[in-house]
């Protein structure tokens, strides 16, 4: 039985999938290899795909032979390019994530975040908004030295952060001795 175009295509695709080398070299090799298959078919008109693979090698054998004959420098170059590509993608993702976070923060109506070290408040961050007063105006600008009045009005529209700030403020009040 003759080798069909479909079988030939599948055979070459199998090699393409597992071959590790520079793209240009891969295309060059697969093109030459395809020509060689045509020459093989001319020489063996009755051969089937099994016989072809037995004579020319399975996709795995061909890829392994290619890798073995490829100089270490080429493999290193390929690995370096891959590594750089990964680093670039990671940096790009980090920038995108920061930008999205920034947009998220800016889109909020405003509020406060209290940074703590070992449970003690050290810093108050203020996200400006029309309906949210500056921390200094409500006694939160220097939480270490100043007593925080739990009754003071903190305008926060974000429900989650509101709970957090309130709980921190309660703890702060306890620490200070209220």
């Amino acid at each position, binding site marked *: 039985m003759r080798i069909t175009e479909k079988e030939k295509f599948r055979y070459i695709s199998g090699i393409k999938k597992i071959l590790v080398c520079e793209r240009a070299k891969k295309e060059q090799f697969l093109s030459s290899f395809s020509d060689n298959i045509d020459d093989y078919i001319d020489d063996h008109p009755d051969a089937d795909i099994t016989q072809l693979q037995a004579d020319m090698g399975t996709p795995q*054998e061909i890829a392994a*032979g290619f890798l073995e004959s490829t100089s270490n420098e080429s493999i290193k170059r390929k690995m370096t390019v891959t590594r750089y590509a990964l680093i670039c993608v990671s940096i790009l993702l980090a920038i995108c994530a920061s930008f999205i976070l920034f947009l998220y923060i800016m889109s909020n109506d405003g509020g406060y975040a209290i940074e703590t070290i070992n449970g003690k408040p050290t810093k108050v961050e203020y996200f400006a908004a029309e309906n949210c007063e500056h921390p200094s105006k409500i006694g939160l600008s220097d939480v270490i030295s100043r007593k925080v009045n739990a009754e003071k009005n903190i305008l926060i529209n974000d429900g989650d952060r509101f709970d957090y700030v309130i709980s921190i403020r309660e703890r702060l009040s306890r620490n200070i001795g209220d």
Partner: protein
Amino acid sequence: MPMQIRENLKKGTVEMVLLHLLKERDMYGYEILQEMRVRSDGKFVLKDGSMYPILYRMIDKGLVDDEQVLVGRRRTRVYYHLNETGKAYLDEITAEYVAITEGINNILEYKGEQSCE
């Protein structure tokens, strides 16, 4: 194990064998592989995957030129041609090969110094 030994020996000489074949005439990939098989009586056989990276390396080094030729209506073949730089390099590695095999043969055939009594 013997196959592994043969593969290791082939690795060191395959470049020279390829260049030697191309010294005779320009050849395309499949033709090179067949020539190798026939002339070595099946003892020095390469697969496509192993030969092409070596050919590409020799092209990169400027030892071999490649030319795509249209065969028939649709088919193409890449012919490889040994250029002057390649010929000089072939002479160099052939001389090295002859020297090293001579040295190895000397070791293998060494009978030791005859003792005089």
